[in-house]
């Protein structure tokens, strides 16, 4: 190798090494940066939060717990709420249970009247239209008879006073004829009135029974079941807060980890990369281009291998042709 080529190849090699070192340094810097960012993210993830009321939630790394500091007013409200909740569980629930017990007792008491009202309602339907017509027809007929007989008596009395006693029989017949003619009218009238009467009676029957049946039915229905249960919801509320905080924190840590891992992988890749020998190789290639010293068999054409032995320089010490003949 001539000195120029060697120097050139060496320079290439140094340059490659320099590049490699630069790349590794950048990755390391990135890793460092990402670590810083991850720390910030974790720090932010664990940062205390303060709401508009002055309540503060923060993470206590020493005890690894989330803590809540309430403002004085909020603490008082919370305390009052707890007191009410406690009373609700101990006093209201008990009162509610007693009320339900009384309700259940009323429901049992309502069963007998309900059954009675229901039986009367079902078994006392409105009278048939025919029977009502009979009632009205009979009453109308009796009223008509009374009226006609009264009129007849008046007319007869008047005739007698007028000295026309011989007309009494005529008066009686005329009166009876009139009564007879009124029978058909009375029947027609009774029919129309019976229809209305039956409707009215049915309405009255329903008005008398259905509301009380409904009321008793409601009372009986309200007696079933148990008192409304009251449970504290503190646990669920606290669980929600903790879950939310844990989720946020885990998310922050996870994001930071991902970034650090990526940076770390990059740095490791940069550090573990093999030296770049491409420059050296190129230098060697350049050097190879310099024509080497001629060898003893340069002039031997490779295509004439069978004659190779013939072209050997015989007679030298190193080579005896006969020794190589088979």
């Amino acid at each position: 190798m001539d000195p120029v080529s060697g120097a050139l190849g060496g320079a290439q090699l140094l340059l490659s090494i320099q590049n490699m070192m630069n790349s590794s340094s950048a990755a390391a810097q990135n890793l460092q940066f990402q670590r810083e960012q991850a720390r910030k993210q974790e720090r932010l993830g664990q940062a205390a939060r303060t709401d508009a009321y002055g309540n503060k939630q923060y993470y206590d790394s020493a005890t690894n717990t989330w803590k809540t500091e309430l403002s004085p007013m909020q603490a008082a409200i919370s305390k009052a709420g707890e007191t009410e909740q406690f009373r609700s569980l101990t006093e209201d629930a008990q009162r509610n249970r007693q009320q339900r017990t009384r309700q259940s007792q009323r429901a049992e008491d309502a069963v007998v009247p309900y059954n009675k009202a229901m039986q009367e309602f079902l078994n006392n339907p409105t009278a048939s239209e025919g029977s009502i017509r009979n009632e009205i027809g009979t009453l109308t007929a009796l009223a008509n008879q009374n009226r006609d007989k009264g009129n007849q008596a008046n007319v007869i009395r008047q005739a007698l006073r007028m000295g026309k006693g011989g007309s009494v029989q005529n008066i009686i017949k005329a009166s009876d004829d009139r009564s007879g003619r009124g029978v058909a009218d009375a029947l027609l009238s009774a029919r129309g009135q019976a229809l209305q009467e039956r409707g009215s009676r049915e309405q009255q029957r329903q008005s008398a029974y259905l509301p009380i049946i409904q009321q008793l039915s409601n009372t009986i229905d309200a007696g079933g079941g148990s008192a409304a249960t009251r449970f504290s919801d503190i646990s669920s509320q606290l669980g929600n807060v903790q879950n939310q905080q844990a989720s946020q924190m885990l998310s922050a840590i996870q994001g930071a980890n991902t970034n650090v891992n990526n940076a770390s992988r990059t740095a490791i890749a940069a550090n573990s990369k093999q030296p770049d020998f491409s420059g050296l190789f190129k230098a060697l290639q350049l050097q190879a281009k310099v024509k080497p010293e001629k060898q003893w068999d340069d002039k031997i054409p490779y295509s004439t291998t069978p004659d190779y032995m013939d072209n050997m320089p015989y007679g030298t010490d190193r080579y005896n042709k006969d020794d190589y003949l088979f």
Partner: protein
Amino acid sequence: MSAPDAPQDNSFAVAQLEGQRADAARLQDKADAETKKQELAGLRTSSADAARNSSAQYFQSLGLDPSGYSGDIDREISSIMSGIAPSDENPGSYFKSAPQDIYGNLNRSYQTKNQSSVDQLFSPNFETSRIQMTMDDPYINDILSEQRMTADNIIENMLKRGVITGTGAAGARGDLDRQAPGIRTQLNTIGDTALAGGQQKLRDVANKARTDAGTLKLGQQFDPNSYGGNADQVFNDFVASLGDQIRSNVSGNLFQTGGLAATAGATQGAGNTAYNPQAAAGVIEDDDEDATSNKESIF
């Protein structure tokens, strides 16, 4: 120097020990379960006994003799017990409302039983089969005949008095014949409504019986036959008064006789016989004052 001996293999013994322990644990569990089962069975029995006693007290508080219903109470409690799982830790809760439930069930059964008796006594439509719609026919025929006879008498009187001739009388009778279907229809209508009234009375008796049976309380006496006797009484009264009831609705003369003389006159043609209002009024007897009384007629 020889190699140390291999450690003794105790695995079989260990396995045996573990097996024995497991067997002992299983036996203990089984014994515990059996004990628990016995305890729960005892608890169920004592709960049932308590329910039996409280039921007896409840029946007593209602004025009932519990001994009369002990069989029913036992049956109900056995029924409740059969629905309790052997592993149930709180069998007493099933008997909490047992006295009221037992009383309620027995009461309902008692009501249902008596309602069935009433239903057997008063079958559906019993009132229409008891009071049939033809029951009024004899009364209607009687009234129709009477009314027709009255109208016919008027015609006969006019004929006897010579107001109308035989031809005229026949024409007048023809007019009455034409009126007869309408009169019969009126009477039938009156009769039907009277029957409907009677049927309603019978229905009322049956409905009262059903209501009473449905609202009965355990221990109350109930005799369906008393309602049957009541229905018989109502029926007999109705039958006895049916004729009167129909007649009370029929007032005056249903046949229109005012125009009979004119109808007869139109039928017989012109006549010289003088008009006699007494005859038109249905006066049969003929007296000597006829000639003078005619002057005072108001017709």
